[in-house]
């Protein structure tokens, strides 16, 4: 029995990751630079990873950590594609400011 499990209630991990997750959300909402927004999303994903890892340890069940791998996979893929799109847009508009994107509306 790990002393983590003994000493730290699982709630703490839940709260911590919730806080991190919401900070990420806040970042997404508040930043105008698409790249930073993307980073905030990565932060959200990490919060999820932390939670999964914690659960997997507490449940002594490996699935959680496996899931973390897949999330990393997806994060990487998304980062690649997302940055690609950013570059493409920057090429056209010379900006990564998402507030300027409102050609499509109504």
């Amino acid at each position: 029995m790990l002393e983590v499990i003994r000493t730290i209630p699982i709630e703490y991990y839940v709260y911590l990751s919730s806080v991190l997750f919401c900070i990420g959300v806040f970042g997404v909402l508040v930043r105008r630079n698409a790249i930073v927004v993307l980073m905030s999303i990565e932060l959200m994903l990490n919060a999820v990873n932390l939670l999964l890892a914690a659960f997997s340890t507490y449940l002594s069940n490996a699935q959680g950590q496996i899931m973390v791998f897949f999330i990393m996979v997806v994060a990487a893929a998304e980062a690649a594609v997302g940055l690609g799109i950013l570059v493409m847009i920057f090429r056209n508009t010379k900006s990564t400011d998402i507030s300027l994107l409102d050609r499509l509306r109504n």
Partner: protein
Amino acid sequence: MKALLILFITAIVALFAGLTHNRKLLQPIAILGTALALVATAVDMMYGDATGWNDHFASMMQFHSYGLAFSGVVLVSTLLIMGLTGWGFRDLQDTLGDNYGLFLFSLCGALCMFSFTNLVMLFLGIEILSIPLYVLAGSRRDDPDSNEAALKYFLMGSFATGILLFGMALIYGATASFNVKDIAIAIIDGRHSVGMTHVGIILILIGLFFKIAAVPFHFWAPDVYTGSPNLVTTFMSTVVKTAGIAAFYRLFALGFIGAIEFWSIAVAGVAALTMIVANVTAIFQTNFKRMMAYSSISHAGYLLLAILAAAQPGSAGAILLYTLTYSIATICAFAVYMLVAEQNNDGNFSAFNGLSKKEPYLAAAMAIAMLSLAGIPPTAGFFGKYFLFSVVFDKYPWLVVLAVINSAVSIYYYFKVIIAMYFSRETETYEVSTPIGFRLVVLAGLGLIALLTLIPGSIYGLI
């Protein structure tokens, strides 16, 4: 699984064929691959064992009538869409192979979403479906609209993914498993921490609501639909919608059925909101594509009704029939729209003025498609709506009344097209030339609609 493999291989073949210089082959390859996948699905459907839970794929996926049937729906849709690509991709020659490849990849994702038995597979499926679409939305790289669509879709999509994942993590924590079956058992037996389950369910709901574009998670849809290339929009509004709702139903009917009392509140509310907002907003659109975007949102609203009836028998069949009729009608409509709009660079309803005189058959096809989308008897769309309403009427009469009123409202905007085509006396001067591919697709689409009108039961009773 066969279909999945066939599609994957076809995609790779298409990629390589794209590198070579004989691009003429691409469309035939894609069509052939999709057709083969369809055949494979049909074969599984007929001869594969469709009994109980089988763990052929390490309890990750399970190809039974449900998944196979929906695979059939999206494969048919894709087949029709592939028929349009020949002319639709005419100015994407440099990335032609990639385009085909990405279409097929995201189709693979859709197939995963129909047959998952594990949240991991659901998650991967959603991502495989989405990531190629982020790119495809922006596949007209020099078109700012396309770019904007891509970025909006990508940012909001990955944001939604984050929420979805948080939900999955909580569910895992609550039930100690990603396996849908175990989750279901845990919830039914009450061996789970209710709070975490409920929060998890809500967060997963949000992720899926985003995928099927339900209010208030629909904001991406109109913009992305409008900005994306027409074919991609067609694909999104048919395949993605189908995949989203099918996965939704599968997860909630298999996994979370034990908590239906809890989540049906949220779903009912969102369904009502979706129907109202989408239909009412669509009234004001002047651009056909945008109108179709809102219409697809409203259809998501109707489909959510079936989720509410997840416990009822026949609800799956209702979704199946609905998605099929909806997809076919949408594809027909978009086929005609592409011809008209891209040939005179005008996406507004006025572009259709007097089409009935110049191209009576296209006009007729469009009209029938619109009637079917509006769910007016005896078009197939009516039966879709009918079965949907009939399964949920017992539990949620007020929602059905709302849906009924909304579908009456929807007539108003669907008929704008018909009015333009048939009743407006002033006619545009452009000429419409119809490639053979489009003729075939439209014809096939009409044929299917007619068939579904005659024997809707055969689909409804399939699962």
